[in-house]
């Protein structure tokens, strides 16, 4: 560590596969915010996906192989941060469960899990961030993605930081805690049921009158954005980190118009 400056924890950014492939802006927004929270950010190359598609399909062997890769790539960091409640929940809650009873890996997975955080809760709960220097003009609404909310208790933190964004007004979404119907592979395995669920979600979103929808998980965001676009809605969709980092110049998720 550099001794002239105060201790800057080293954060390993777990980009998540969806952010890596579909929306790098969220990754850069996360880097910016974590740096603003007084940390150094590194991005290990040996990361792919958290393993949820395999884990939730009952394929434990592949999940374990992926989990071992991830643990090895990240365990040297002070913190591991992911811009997704779902992936952070996988790393933090499910990795230790996966290796339960494994003499070699259980302790490693547990140590690793202790350092894992979802981005916004990391900023607020771990780094004590109270405000952001960002501006976003207009009304937004916020959907609480399931894993972040129920596995990690992410609810107040994004709202606290959003309230400090200049020009932004938060209109609460009715049933914000109800699933959007994404559910990973669920949405393609049971598309009709998933569609029924997301239709109710977009109805609620429209009711708020907000021009922008925010959430903390790209999977859910792509699902809701995709539905809003299909319905011809004017509501734009973004990851909460983009707004908090003031990186909203590019087109929203699913494009403009």
């Amino acid at each position, binding site marked *: 560590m550099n001794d002239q400056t105060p201790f800057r924890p080293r954060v390993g950014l777990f*980009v998540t596969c969806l952010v*890596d*492939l*579909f*929306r*790098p*802006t969220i*990754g850069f927004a996360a880097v910016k915010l974590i740096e603003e929270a007084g940390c*150094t950010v590194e*991005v290990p*190359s040996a*990361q*792919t*996906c958290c*393993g949820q*598609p*395999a*884990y*939730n*399909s*009952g*394929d434990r062997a*592949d999940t374990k*192989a*992926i989990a071992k*890769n991830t643990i090895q*790539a990240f365990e040297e960091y002070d913190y591991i941060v992911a811009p997704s409640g779902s992936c952070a929940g996988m790393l933090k809650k499910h990795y230790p*469960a996966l290796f339960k009873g494994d003499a070699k890996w259980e302790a490693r997975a547990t140590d690793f899990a202790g350092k894992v955080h979802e981005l916004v809760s990391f900023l607020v709960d771990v780094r004590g961030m109270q405000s952001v220097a960002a501006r976003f003009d207009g009304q937004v609404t916020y959907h609480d993605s*399931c*894993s972040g909310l*129920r596995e990690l208790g992410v609810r107040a933190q994004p709202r606290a930081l959003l309230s400090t964004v200049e020009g932004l007004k938060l209109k609460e979404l009715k049933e914000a*805690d109800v*699933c959007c119907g*994404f*559910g*990973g592979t*669920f*949405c*393609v*395995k*049971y*598309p*009709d*049921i998933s*569609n*029924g*669920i*997301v239709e109710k979600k977009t109805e609620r979103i429209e009711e708020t009158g907000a021009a922008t929808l925010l959430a903390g998980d790209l999977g859910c965001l*792509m*699902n809701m*954005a*995709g*539905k809003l*676009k*299909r319905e011809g809605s004017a509501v734009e969709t973004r990851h909460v980190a983009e707004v908090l980092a003031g990186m909203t110049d590019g*087109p929203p998720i*699913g*494009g*403009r*118009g």
Partner: protein
Amino acid sequence: MEITSPRFKQNAREALADPQLQKAMGNVRSGFIDKRQAAVEALPEFDALRDNARAIKDHALSNLDLYLEAYEAKVRAAGGFVHWAETAEDARTVILDICRAAGARTVTKGKSMITEEIGLNEFFEKNGVKPVETDLGEYIIQLRGEHPSHIIAPAVHLNKEQVEADFRRVHDHLPASRDLSEPEALLGEARRVLRAAYFDADVGITGANFLVAETGSSIIVTNEGNGDLTQILPKVHIVLASLEKIVPTLEDAAQILRVLARSATGQDMSVYTTVSTGPRRLDDPDGPEEYHVVLLDNGRSSMLGTEFQDMLRCIRCGACMNHCPVYHEIGGHAYGWVYPGPMGAVLTPALIGVDKAGHLPNASTFCGRCEAVCPMRIPLPKMMRHWREREFERGLNPATARGGLKLWAFFAKRPWLYRLTTSMAIPVLSLFGGRKGRFRFLPLAGGWTRHRDLPAPESRTFMQQWRGREALKQETGGKQGAAR
């Protein structure tokens, strides 16, 4: 009851296209959730009570043989009979024998999911015994020749207009001009019709919410009082209960009752909590002459000691389905057997086999709301995942899904190859996404694009851009590079 769980997808599609059902499911979404929430908020110790309830059941389940034997001894001491039924067929046979011995032609029934599980009504009808459901919801679906779609609100899939039409069709001895537009009128009419049935019945059958080892009692909770009349008026009372209903003491039952109704309907307590112990004693004002308990296993003991044991804590409150987004969309019948919603997604594969019920644990978004509200803290999503693991081990999932998963996992396990491939594919996909930045249709992504657009990748992958940025920093001698 015919098992249609293997046709789950088809069932779900039909349910989604059924306007009556969709309307009725709106009532579930609005009816149960707020009431439970209010009841929970009014009781600060609710979560502590949940912990307590879980501990009671866990203890009972780890000493199941002990408490069941103690219970049996107490029932016998009170003058009742206990019959052990390993399978549904055993239970049906015992029950029919009891009814035959009593010369029964009509049997009244309190609401009981276990009688659904063993297909008792169909069996009775085949054998010349007439079953009469006395719970209003059960009565309605019996008129319709249907099965319950919810474990505590069996007719929740129906609207009042449908019920009115059924009553007019079946109660054709009543004046056609009567007003049945209000729910109260329907209730009153059912009550009058059922009154007669109570007195005709030779045997009354109820389920049990609890069996109490300490006293040999069975306890049922109802809101209509129909359970009381079912068990008090006929000569013979049969309690049909599954093994895991056992709790050690009355106090334990009382503890769990504090979370049951609150979780189910948001009531502090159900209107009637009825304890019955043995047949009528000499100084009792009423009660049956004979008291039988049929203890059903039907696959439950094989869940003990497995990753599915926690499911046996279930007290059938229905909170998990009331809060389930999938249940809200498709209702209970789509699940294709007796138990719907999240609890059914875990229990049904255990009882009828995961080869038949494989869709159920898969048709979940793992949103976790069921576990969050379950009073017995049953880790429902985790157990659904365990079923998926069993299916995967046995190769029961579709070959295409398996193949896709394996291909994906091949790359996900090899970061360098993954990086190489995605670095080539993603910019191309981004290009195809065009100015609009999304796809209305994409080959191989039909499941997604059937109902929604697919946002296109922004440009190059994050990793590509990040490496580029770091390389640039190094070149320009900027800050110490962060890439490894």
